[in-house]
């Protein structure tokens, strides 16, 4: 099988085939001797040249993370033949920016009024979750174009809270 894989923004081409012994594996064209076994769901044990790695997988929101040791890697799998362009991971300061709710909760306070100027990092509204007041800050200098989630609104993770122009 052939995979295009992106790990923390870096691209890899992986060729993987099951051999009777175990696996045939080529990473970016380089042959690598590996031994792998799925210990349990989302937990993989891989041996490479004697070194033992335990890899854990998790999905949070729409991201997939692979943990090797204590280190987290963002992982993406793609179909090499598709023309679908990948979502640009680099932040872009041009144009309007949306503020997303980082967790489900309740908007308890809106600090800035619409059309008011805001600094990058300035607190715009406060979302209460798990008994904590969490300040949601502006990602850029500009104007608060719109408050999408009004005071008292219950929001889910990923909901748009406001837009800064």
């Amino acid at each position, binding site marked *: *099988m*052939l*995979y295009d*894989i992106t*790990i*923390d923004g*870096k691209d*890899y081409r*992986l060729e*993987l085939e*099951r051999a009777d012994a175990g*696996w045939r*594996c080529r*990473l970016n064209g380089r042959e*690598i001797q*590996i031994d*792998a076994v*799925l210990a349990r*769901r*989302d*937990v*993989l044990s*891989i041996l*490479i040249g004697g070194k033992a*790695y335990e*890899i*854990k*997988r*998790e*999905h*949070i*929101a*729409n*991201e*997939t993370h*692979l*943990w*090797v*040791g*204590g*280190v987290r*890697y963002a*992982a993406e*799998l*793609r*179909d090499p*033949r598709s023309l679908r362009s990948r979502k640009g991971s680099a932040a872009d300061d041009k144009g309007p920016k949306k503020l997303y709710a*980082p*967790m*489900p*909760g309740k908007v308890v306070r809106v600090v800035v009024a619409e059309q008011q100027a805001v600094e990058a990092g300035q607190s715009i509204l406060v979302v209460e*979750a*798990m*008994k*904590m007041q*969490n*300040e949601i800050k502006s990602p850029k200098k500009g104007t608060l174009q719109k408050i999408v989630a009004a005071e008292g609104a219950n929001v*889910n*993770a990923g909901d748009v809270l406001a837009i800064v122009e």
Partner: protein
Amino acid sequence: MFKKILIANRGEIAVRVIRACRELGITSVAIYSDVDRASLHVRKADEAYHIGAPAAAESYLNMAKILDVAKRSGADAIHPGYGFLSENAKFARACGGAGVKFIGPSPVSMEMMGSKTRARQEMEKVGVPFVPGTSRGLESPEQAEQVAARIGYPVMLKAAAGGGGKGMRLVHEPGELRPALEAAQSEAERAFGDREVYVEKAIVNPRHIEMQVLADEYGNTVYLGERECSIQRRHQKVLEEAPSPIVDPDMRRRMGEVAVRVAKAAGYTNAGTVEFLVDRDKNFYFLEMNTRLQVEHPVTELITGLDLVHLQIRIAAGEKLPFGQEDIRIRGHAIECRIYAEDPDNNYFPSPGRITLLLSPSGPGIRRDSGMYEGWTVPVDYDPLLAKLIGYGTDRGQAISRLTRALYEYFVGGIKTNISLFRRILTDADFQAGKVDTGYLDRLLKSKAPEVMGENAEVAAIAAGIFAILDPASVVGNGNLSPNPGNKTVGGVAVSGWKKAGRFEALD
């Protein structure tokens, strides 16, 4: 001894108390709100009763409902845990009225310690050391200025009814005083419905060290050694240890004797904690008394070999303390990490949601008090404490190394946790040297994080492919099992992340 105890709490502390009940042969009664039906404390209890909506006011703070459950279930005692109603004198009194034993001190003692200014007045009478300042609320800005001038800047303004840092202001110079006072008063008003504020000499970057006391109902009071609790974020404790790296046997004895004096002056019974501020010269000042079991009680249990919850229950049942001060022996060192559902990479925002994978550490010197399990959805309605990981060692160094090892084994998938923060603290040179104070963690977090080696990116790339082949649909199979709606979302989203992988297999 009691026949049946109602635990008026949730999460890890409810589980902790339920275990003690089982060990003592006492039937345990759990209560739960709408979102806690599948929580671990309900699974572990002998009995469980629904008490209402998620909002604490509707459930875990609702005295009437809780006492009604106590009555229906025939419980003869109530353990409040920490937080919620644990320091509520009104509740303790209501329990007495309902003929149910409240496992804790008397309402009178709770009230005395509930007001910082009243506590200060009482404790000054018996010669307990205090930070210089007013022992009662300020009448006017003018008075504030006089006192501040007398004790000298910097000064700290504090809410009389305060806690958790609310209504607190550090004032460096006279010019800042009036605005800070107003701010502190209105914040105190909002937080506690009481604008009373007092002023103290500010001790910059003190240590926060507390002393555990235990008193039976026959006047026997002992201290069980101190806990170093200086490592805090936003005035919330994050990591605690016992003993404190700076407390020697003589200082321990002196602090302990003051703590016992405080308890006796308050007519205190059951388990309690006397908090001290300690300055650079190891002078200690009374801060407040917590009239309940502390979150961090396990570190004291590990160095003394005692079970504080067993003792709380036995004391409440009218038993005498089974030992005297001279019998208490401190051995080894213990450190506790509070595992929170929060995101260290994003302002420590809370991170509720479904736990899709849980690998828990065990082995030598490791104690785990947990309220979570794989498949459980962490609700958004309560504080983010998931579990406590406690490491014990022959000495501090071994406790650190065992805890570091256990954190390496610990994995919580599907939500964010602060586990990586503890890796950072435990490997920090100042921490390892015991150089900590209440400003330590903020300084550490401001400092540049050690570069995380991405050396295993290639391993991750290979793993991504192998997962796609051996375990493509894991989260689907997982989502199916979700007992509560919350899971579906997570499961659903998660799947899409890997549908692609499924498709590739067809291609080659």
